[in-house]
Every structure is written in structure tokens, then in C-alpha cells.
């Protein structure tokens, strides 16, 4: 890992990037579901955009514990989208006002609900962009994930683009079938893509001889898989890619941008290291290589 520089990030380095016309002071932002109001102070001066946990049309209690388990160089989680629901979220929208462009991540049980949420968000000027969490079960299709097939991905994206034409729309996909889904999303009108969500995983408790947790794997363990997804997709789509999965250092940020990402999100990595340190490391990397952030993305 790159050593921590004396200078703090930004002052001497051009970290700014542009995401569908939204100017970001740095290419880092929180991954959906990994930065809560209680920890907002970590965002200031570090992140280029704000992204709260996925919101659903109605409040969700979430899954019973255990919800997290450790894995080699990573963790498995099954939170169950615990959230207060769209209306409460919108009432408290100003809580997320930290002077950063606000991305809102949404999920729903049905295509029509996705579209309705976008329509509701259209009225909020403070919302800079919307991220569609397509890894949630599609109740109309027997609980199959929306991103299980390119057809449903296209369906959701098209419906949302129609009700929310004026704001950039990011489709967040899982690794399985990512290239086909990415193409489908872009053709249906997605302005950008967020790659990737957690990878389906299982943790077994050998002592109790039972399944301990069925959830999604994230953290450094999945970094090589995410980099592959970003790289392959960047070769077949036009729009910008937000890379997410396994970032825990400034060098990781550089790797994702080199592989084809315009910006990155930090999730599990922010639980074990300060995002500020990652940004400092990334800034040091840019200085050493005499590059500006925007020059790095899609280097190969």
C-alpha cells in the first residue's frame, strides 16, 4: 500500500472528476448501505458525493440477527434493506446535506414501484442522481432478482427513465451476467452503471454444524472480481462506471479507475480504514505519477 503522505489530500492535487455532468470534488463516494447519518463527519472533505442506504417505497424492519459475519479478507452481510421508507427519508432529506451532490439509491418489489419512486424523487432538486439497486427480489417474477435477466434490467431502467428523465440514472448490477445486463441497462437509457453489488455467499458455523449466514460477500476478497467486471463492461458501454467492491486503499482507487471506472464507492473497506487515508493515498499516487484524477480513468 502507498505510504501516507505528509500533505493532506486535495490541496496540491486535482482530484475532481465529472459524472454525467455532476462535478465531484473527489472520485470517492460511500457505497450504498455503508455510511449512516451517525458517521457523516467521515464524508466531509473526503467524498465527492453522498449516497445514503437504499430506500424502499415502504419502511423495512430488515432481517433478524446475525446479519454480518467475517470472511477471509472480507465480510458477508444480510441486512435485509432495513430503512425508514421513502416518505420518512424525504422528510429528513436535509440530514444528508453536507454540501455534496446527493445520490439516492432505491429498490422496490416491482417495476411500477421503481418508476413511482423515481417520479416522487423528480420533485426534489436536491437529489442529483438516482442509483437503481437491481439486486433486490422481483416479486412479480417469483422473487428472482431484477438483474437476473437483461430483459428485466431493461424494463426497470426504461420505466424509471420515463418518470425521471431529467436526472442521471445509475443501474447497480451484480457480478453474475454483468456484461449482458450492463449493455441492456445502457440501451434502456441508463446514464451510468454501478458495478458491483455483493456476491452471493454462505457462512457455515462448523461448531454448531449449521448455516450461520446466507448473504453477500464484500471487501478486499472480491476486488479482483470487481475489477474484472469494471474492465469487461467498460469495453462495451459508453457511459461512466462507478466501481465498487473491495476498495480499501488509495492504490485500489487507482486500480479501479485504470480498469475503466470514472468514480468509485467504498463500502466494507470504510469499516476497517479511514476513507480519508484512502483519499490521501490516492492523492499521493496521482502526485507521484503526475496525473490528474480524470486523466487516470480508462487508462487502459
Amino acid at each position, binding site marked *: 500500500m502507498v505510504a501516507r503522505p505528509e500533505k493532506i489530500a486535495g490541496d496540491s492535487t486535482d482530484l475532481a472528476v465529472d459524472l454525467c455532468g455532476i462535478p465531484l470534488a473527489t472520485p470517492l463516494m460511500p457505497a450504498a448501505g455503508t455510511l449512516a447519518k451517525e458517521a457523516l463527519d467521515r464524508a466531509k472533505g473526503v467524498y465527492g458525493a453522498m449516497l445514503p442506504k437504499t430506500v424502499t417505497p415502504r419502511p423495512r424492519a430488515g432481517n433478524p440477527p446475525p446479519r454480518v459475519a467475517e470472511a477471509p479478507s472480507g465480510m458477508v452481510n444480510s441486512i435485509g434493506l432495513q430503512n425508514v421508507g421513502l416518505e420518512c427519508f424525504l422528510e429528513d432529506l436535509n440530514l444528508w446535506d453536507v454540501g455534496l451532490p446527493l445520490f439516492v439509491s432505491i429498490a422496490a418489489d416491482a417495476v411500477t414501484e421503481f418508476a413511482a419512486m423515481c417520479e416522487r424523487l423528480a420533485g426534489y432538486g436536491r437529489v442529483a442522481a438516482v442509483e437503481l439497486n437491481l439486486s433486490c427480489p422481483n416479486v412479480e417474477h417469483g422473487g428472482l432478482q431484477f438483474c437476473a435477466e437483461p430483459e428485466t434490467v431493461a424494463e426497470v431502467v426504461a420505466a424509471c427513465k420515463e418518470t425521471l428523465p431529467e436526472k442521471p440514472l445509475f443501474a447497480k448490477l451484480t457480478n453474475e451476467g454483468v456484461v449482458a445486463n450492463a449493455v441492456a441497462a445502457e440501451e434502456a437509457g441508463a446514464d451510468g452503471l454501478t458495478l458491483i453489488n455483493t456476491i452471493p455467499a454462505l457462512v457455515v458455523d462448523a461448531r454448531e454444524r449449521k448455516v450461520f449466514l446466507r448473504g453477500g460477500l464484500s471487501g478486499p476478497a472480491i476486488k479482483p472480481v470487481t475489477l474484472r467486471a469494471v474492465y469487461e463492461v467498460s469495453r462495451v458501454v459508453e457511459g461512466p462506471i462507478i466501481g465498487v467492491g473491495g476498495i480499501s486503499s488509495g492504490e485500489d482507487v487507482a486500480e479501479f479507475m485504470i480498469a475503466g471506472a470514472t468514480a468509485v464507492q467504498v463500502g466494507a473497506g470504510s469499516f*476497517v480504514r479511514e476513507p480519508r487515508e484512502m483519499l490521501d493515498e490516492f492523492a499521493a499516487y496521482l502526485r507521484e505519477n503526475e496525473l490528474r484524477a480524470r486523466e487516470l480513468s480508462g487508462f487502459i
Partner: protein
Amino acid sequence: MTARERFGDHALLRYRWPGQVPEPGQFVMARTSTQSLDPFLPRPLFVHDYEDREMSLFFEIRGRGTLLLAEEGARLLVSGPLGRGFQTDDGELVALLGGGVWVAPLKLLGRSLDREGIVCDTFLEIPATAPEAYAAWISESYPDATLVPTKETSDPSRAVLNRLGDLERYASLFASGPVEMLSAVMRASAGRVSAQIALRERMACANGSCYGCAIPVWGSGERIYARACVEGPVFPAEVLAW
């Protein structure tokens, strides 16, 4: 790092702590390295004691994380103190109930009650199976405590409560022990005496972000999930929806 002691499969770490003064019942996140990504997560551990800028942790060696923390010569990286600890406002007689390694946070609690001039009776369960060294250490570090060997009763979870006798004598109960003991205290205290209970749930972020450390509680009549790392780890018994 000022001291690292081992009692069988338990360990006690002492280190200088120039940082924020901990409340009793708060915890820290502890790890041994920043170079390695495995074990990935730091380990949540209650603040066992704190005085004169020295903090200590008392824990059981369970798996790799605690094994590494207890290892001779290992580095110690601590963040905290974190969470919402015991609330010790009412100045009368209170009772401290502990069991197993979970007695850890009661040392600092006893110390601060003392400082506030609140009298307290301390009852600590000692499992029949507890190793010699461990039992010896407990009686030494909790000199005023009544030790309750759990062979004494058929139902270990109630052992300490039985010994406690009439609950109404106490302004409040403070409990940290095995889950069975905690739920027994919860039930017994209901509608009779205020009780505060120190819980554990697996954690990742420890700052409220991941919603991983879910504890079922009553929120305006509904069963909802609170986060042990920010709304806890200490909860009033009456809000717990176990």
C-alpha cells in the same frame, strides 16, 4: 502496551490510553495489524477498566482475532470508546450482576458508582467449569463481589438472581453475562425494578453505518431493530423485544 496477562483461555490487556475517557459499558474496536486484510474486522471488546489514563480489556480467546490479540509481542490498535454505556444517575443502592467473561465491563462500572457514592452489591456467576486461574483472578479483581458458583443451582441462568433475593431493594440492576442470565434478569426485573443490560451482537462498522449489530427492541409499540454499536451496547431491560 503496559501489560498482557493470560489466565488459561482468557486474557487481560493493559495499555496507556490518552484518548477520550470511557463510560462504563462502552466498548472499543481492537485489532493487531493494519498491514494485513485478514482477519478483516477489528474485534469489539468492552472497556474492562480505566484509571489514570490506563485502559484494560478482559476477554476470552475464541478464535483467530482474540488469539492474535492475546499473542505475546502483538501490536494493539484500539479505537473508541464507542456506544452507549450504563446510565448511573440515581444515587441509591444498586446491584451488579455478571457471569462468565461478560463480567468485563462491571469493573469500570463498580469504580464509577463508587466515585458517585452509589452503594452497590455485586454478584458474579462462576461457571462450575471455570479454570482455576480464571476463578482466582475474578475473586482478586472483584474483591467485594459475591461469587456464585453455578453448580449451586439446577438453573444456572437464575443462579445469580436467586442469590440476589428481593429485587425491590435496589434502585436498579446492571447486568452483563451469558444470554440466559440476561433474559432471566430482563424477565425478573419487568415492572419491579429498572434494569440495564449489556448486550453483544456481531459487529462490522461499529459506527452505526452497516446495521449489522441488530438488537430487537420495542419502538412505539412495534418490534424494530436497534443497533448495538450506537443505541447500545447497554439497553434498558424494558425496551428489549427478546
